[in-house]
C-alpha cells in the first residue's frame, strides 16, 4: 500500500483463527505493527511485554473474556484505545464497556469499517 503506515501498535485478541488472521492481516497492512494472540489470558500476558496504542479484542473467549482483557488494559494505561468485537450486541454490557472507555465493534464487520476504525484511532493517538 502506498499510503504511509498509521502510527499504531495494535494487539488483536481473538480465539476464532480465521477472524484473527483477517483482522491481523488488515491491521498489519495499515499500521506500524500488529500482534495477534488466541485467547484472553495470552492477551493479558502480551500487555506486559510491550506497549500498545490499540487493543482489539473479542468478547467471548476461553481463559479470560474481552471485559477482563479491557480491564487489564485500563489498569496499565489510560491512553491505550480499546475496541471490543461482539457478535451479539443485545447481550453485551455496554455500561461496562463505557466504564472502561472501550468502543464496540459489532460483528459481522467489513474491512472498510476496520480501516475507518484504525484511522480514527490514529487521529486520537
Amino acid at each position, binding site marked *: 500500500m502506498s499510503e504511509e503506515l498509521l502510527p499504531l501498535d495494535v494487539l488483536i485478541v481473538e480465539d476464532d483463527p480465521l477472524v484473527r488472521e483477517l483482522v491481523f492481516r488488515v491491521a498489519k497492512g495499515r499500521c506500524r505493527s500488529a500482534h495477534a494472540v488466541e485467547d484472553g489470558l495470552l492477551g493479558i500476558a502480551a500487555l506486559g511485554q510491550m506497549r500498545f496504542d490499540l487493543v482489539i479484542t473479542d468478547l467471548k473467549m476461553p481463559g479470560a473474556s474481552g471485559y477482563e482483557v479491557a480491564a487489564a488494559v485500563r489498569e496499565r494505561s489510560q491512553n491505550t484505545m480499546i475496541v471490543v468485537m461482539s*457478535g451479539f450486541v443485545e447481550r453485551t454490557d455496554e455500561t461496562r464497556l463505557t466504564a472502561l472507555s472501550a468502543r464496540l465493534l459489532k460483528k459481522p464487520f467489513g*474491512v472498510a469499517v476496520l480501516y475507518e476504525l484504525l484511522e480514527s484511532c490514529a487521529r486520537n493517538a
Partner: protein
Amino acid sequence: MDPSERDSAVDTELARTLAPMTNVLVALASGDFEARVARSHDGGPIDVLSFLVNAMADEVAVLVHDLEREREELKATRDKLVLAEKLSAIGEISEGVAHELNQPLTVIRMLTELLAMRPNATIAECARDLSLLADATTRMTRIVESVQTFARGPALRRELVRADEPLEAALGLLETPIKRAGIVVERNDRDQKSPVIAVDRERICQVFVNVLANACYALESLPEARSRTIRIATVANPASVVFRVADDGPGVAQEHASKLFDPFFTTKPPGCGTGLGLSVSHGIVRDHGGEIRYEPSMPNGACFVIELPRSAEAR
C-alpha cells in the same frame, strides 16, 4: 294404624316437608349454585332450616366463584411462565446462533472486500482466500443444519430394530476418524443376541454419532503414546436397553458437567463444534421416552449412558 304404617306415614310427611331443601341440596351438588329454598318466613323450625340451607348455598357459591377465579389466574400465570420460558429458550438459542453465524459472516465479508481490493490478482493467487470462503460457508451450513435438527418436532419414525443396529451404523460412519486417531473400540455385546427396540433408527444413530464423535475428540487430545479406548457396554433390562459409551480421555470438568446438555454449550475451540450435539441428542432420547446422562468414567474419562425403553410389542 299399626306402628309400621304410622312410621311410613311420618316418613312420607317428613320427606314432603324437606323436599324443597333436598332439591336445593341436590342442585348444589350437581353444580347449580343459584338454587335456593323458597322460605315461608314464619320463623318455624322448617323456615330456620331453609334459612340455614340458603346461607350455606350463598357461602358455597362465593367459595366456588373464588375458586374459579383463582384457577383462571393460576392458568394465566402458568401460561405466562411457559411463554417466558419459551422466550428465554429462544433468546438463548438466538444468542448462540448469532454468535456462531457472525464469526463466519465476518470472515466472508472481510475476505470478499480484501479480494475486491486486488482486481488484478489471478485465481491461483487468491486460492487460499477462496478456500477460506468455502470453509466459512460450510461452517454456516453446519450451524443451520444443527438448528433445524434442534427445532424439529418430536415426530419420530419408529420401527422395530435390533438394539445394536443404530450403534453399528454410527460406528460405521465414524470408522475413518476412529482408525485415524488409533482408537480401540471394545464391546461387550458381541456374543449376545441383541434385543429388539422400537426406535427411529436414524435419530438414535445420530445420538450415537454425537456421543462417539465427542469421545473421539476427547481421545485425540491425549498424548500420542497413551492408549485410546472407547468401551461400549449394552445391557438389556426387562423394560429398557442401557448403552454405556465410555472413553478414557480427559473427562469433563466438574463445573461443565451440569451444562453438557445445554444448547450451544461447548468446550471445543471455535469452528470445531456448534454446542448442539448433546442438546439435540438429549431431545431425541427424551422423545423416545428414554434418558441420556453423563457419568464420570473411572479412573478417568467420560461416560454417556443412554437408556431406551423396550416397547411392549418388541419385548
